[in-house]
């Protein structure tokens, strides 16, 4: 076992983690841990843009962005956080440009902007051009730029290190983490004054997802196992346009540039549901429109998909602004988007929920907002909450640069102020016990089969439309799979690059994420944003204008409500 000492350890090298690291580089001793190489992080898969009210191509104001974020999240967004998001988006994007990010440009040389779902002018009057973009590779450019800055600033990277545990002292403060070096199998203890969880999401709990295979919720599940609550887990976004059967994302930018969804009859159905924004209504709604079309027999050829039609767009616009996503359609479906409609279906895309934090990314342990000293989270693994019940397109990238930056700045101040907490006597005890338990299982069950069963039940019962019977069945199945997991055997006995062991551990993490998603979904007896209950079709502000917090206790799962912060915008009916 190797023991290292750092002022701060950042787990996850996507946009949030790297943004935090860059704030601290050179001013504190900081390490970035990733189970991948940093540029492989899933931030790189983001396509369409990053929202900021720069007003480069038409009038825009951060107040409008804040309003859209609150309304898009079906009013369960904490408005103090949404204000920070919308305000700080502007200079965060400028900072990215200063770091070298190659944005597309307007004829005057400014950062170019385009339309995106749910982003409007003057509090909902019509679409506004707010998404700053680099073709349909905005996330790629962000991850590359931030990695470049990490290299420039001599950030210390622990590449291909897998998170096994976060260490908490008896008094509750965080004092480091335990990793497993994938290349050697060696255990490392990283003793630190502060730890940032920036491990992203867990879309892999669903069968059809846009998420990378690495999106297994490691950094969310581990604190949850240690009794720390997870918040708003029932709010899981299904992006309307995943490539049929594969779930690979086809950016909303395709509709921002004028693409139209059509059902099996060729009808542009979105305007029937959302007369003002039509195809650019928020994602939760468009996914439900598709679900409804399919349910009423208007899917293409009676199947469970519809078409995204780009054939009327100028081919030059497709080549210049949507090159990658149209390539995906060609490569994986054999469809030429310039002349043929693209088969699409909703795909599990983004967790609005996660570790509850305050606006400085400090993880809190209860509904009063009690901070856990030294423990931070930012990006998709966190729930601030700026996305509420449904995240607007582009706001994930905004979230990770704004709150990654705030995390880094707050941590820097914290580690410069505080002394090292004392490590528990056997800091790696829980991690080793977990490893040994998984390695000693000798059952006949395979991780792949358990994983597939989890993904099936989550997709069938816990996706775009939910009801009590389905959720109870899902809860039973997840608990049964957790028992089966105890009999899954790891077939690779090696120490070097044991990805069989890694996938098995990841499955364990995903089962915990799935458990909390189902628990939140069962508790929330209303429909709001991405959480749609066919047995409770209306939003219920009297009982449910509140966040849910699910936590593991000695007496089983506990669910509590946390009040929503409302500062400016009173909840209204959400129409587009």
């Amino acid at each position, binding site marked *: 076992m190797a023991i290292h000492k750092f002022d701060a350890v950042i787990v996850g090298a996507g946009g949030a983690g790297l943004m935090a690291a860059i704030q601290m580089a050179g001013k504190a001793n900081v390490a970035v841990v990733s189970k*991948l*190489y940093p*540029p*492989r*992080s*899933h931030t*790189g*898969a983001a396509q369409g843009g990053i929202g900021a009210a720069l007003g480069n191509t038409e009038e825009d104001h951060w107040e409008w962005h804040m309003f859209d974020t609150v309304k898009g999240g079906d009013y369960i967004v904490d408005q103090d956080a949404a204000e920070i998001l919308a305000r700080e988006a502007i*200079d965060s*994007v*400028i900072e990215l*440009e*200063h*770091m*070298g990010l*190659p*944005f*597309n*440009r*307007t*004829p*005057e*040389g*400014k*950062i170019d902007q385009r339309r995106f779902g749910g982003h409007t002018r003057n509090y909902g009057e019509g679409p506004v051009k707010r998404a700053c973009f*680099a073709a349909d*590779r905005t996330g*790629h*450019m962000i991850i*590359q*730029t931030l990695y*470049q*800055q990490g*290299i*420039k600033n001599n950030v210390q990277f622990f590449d291909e290190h897998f998170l096994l545990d976060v260490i908490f002292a008896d008094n509750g403060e965080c004092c480091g983490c335990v990793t497993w070096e994938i*290349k050697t199998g060696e255990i490392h203890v990283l003793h630190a004054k502060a730890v940032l969880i920036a491990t992203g999401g867990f879309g892999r709990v669903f069968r059809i997802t846009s998420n*990378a*295979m*690495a999106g297994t919720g490691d950094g969310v599940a581990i604190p949850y196992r240690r009794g720390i609550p997870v918040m708003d887990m029932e709010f899981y976004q299904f992006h309307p346009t995943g490539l049929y059967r*594969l779930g*690979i994302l086809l950016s909303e930018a395709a509709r921002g540039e004028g693409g139209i969804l059509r059902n099996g009859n060729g009808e542009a159905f979105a305007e029937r549901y959302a007369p003002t924004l039509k195809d650019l209504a928020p994602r939760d709604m468009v996914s439900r429109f598709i679900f409804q079309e399919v349910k009423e027999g208007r899917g293409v050829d009676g199947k469970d998909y519809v078409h995204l039609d780009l054939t009327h767009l100028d081919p030059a616009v497709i080549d210049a602004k949507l090159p*990658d996503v149209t390539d*995906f359609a060609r*490569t*994986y*479906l*054999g469809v030429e988007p310039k002349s043929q409609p693209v088969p699409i279906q909703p795909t599990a895309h983004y967790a609005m929920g996660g570790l509850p934090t305050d606006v400085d990314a400090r993880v809190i342990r209860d509904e009063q907002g009690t901070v856990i000293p030294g423990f931070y989270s930012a990006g998709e693994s966190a729930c601030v909450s700026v996305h509420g019940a449904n995240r607007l397109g582009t706001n994930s990238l905004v979230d990770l640069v704004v709150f990654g930056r705030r995390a880094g700045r707050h941590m820097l101040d914290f580690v410069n102020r505080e002394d090292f907490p004392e490590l528990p006597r056997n800091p790696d005890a829980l991690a080793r016990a977990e490893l040994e338990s998984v390695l000693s299982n000798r059952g006949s069950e*395979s*991780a*792949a089969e358990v994983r597939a069963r989890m993904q099936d039940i989550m997709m069938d019962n816990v996706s775009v439309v939910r009801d009590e019977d389905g959720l109870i069945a899902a809860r039973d199945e997840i608990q049964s799979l957790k028992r089966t997991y105890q009999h899954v055997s*790891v*077939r*690779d006995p*090696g*120490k*070097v*690059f*044991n*990805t*069989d062991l890694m996938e098995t551990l990841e499955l364990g993490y995903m089962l915990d994420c799935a458990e909390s998603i189902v628990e939140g979904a069962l508790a929330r007896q209303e429909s709001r944003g991405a959480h749609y209950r066919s047995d409770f079709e209306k939003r219920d502000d009297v009982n449910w204008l509140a966040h849910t917090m699910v936590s593991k206790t000695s007496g089983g799962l506990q669910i509590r409500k946390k009040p929503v912060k409302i500062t400016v915008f009173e909840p209204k009916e959400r129409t587009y």
Partner: protein
Amino acid sequence: MKSTMRIKRFDPENDVKPSFRDYDVECDPNDRVLDALNQVKWFQDGTLTYRRSCAHGICGSDAMRINGRNRLACQVLMKEVGKKVTIEPLLGYEVIKDLIIDMDKFFDAYKSVKPYLIANDPPASHERLQSPADRDRFDDTTKCILCAACTTACPITWTNDQFVGPAAIVNAHRFIFDSRDQGSGERLQILNQQSGVWRCRTIFNCTDACPRDIEVTKAIEEVKRALLVEAL
């Protein structure tokens, strides 16, 4: 369709040298090679080891030799590779296990060319201006995903481990031709050394291998030309 996957295996804890093993898989013609590898790993042999993440050609994890060509396993469909597929690790770097190569030298070479914007005094409150034409000048090389397919396809890197390789040059190009950058001199000096662009013999393997369709050889030629212009 039925396919036979012929995979080069190496277990550093038990094997002296690598050897091939065959696996039969039943797959859809539209499955990716990565799907077939997953099928082997998940349902036949859990010890099979490879890197992968995004599964759609964006993260750069799963570059490998597929029927003798460097490709991303998630970007090639089974129907393209036929009923017999040979899978090997990329050439030129040490193999850690099965299809996993040691990437340290690759990233060291990348870091050696100062792959970050060098620009002093940006304007405080707004973005630097850059015309669409200036932005287009380096668009191609911004697409690099650091998968190493180009560098490990280059015969020069196989024999000369000092050569920085195509990927590092691509990433230097991305900044040398960015109108906002002020570090071109430093980078060109690095690439003018023994280990730099003059090792390139314009073989075009790199361009053929790039899964992002970057014109790698052209980028290298542009860097060479920039050096010549500077020398004049």
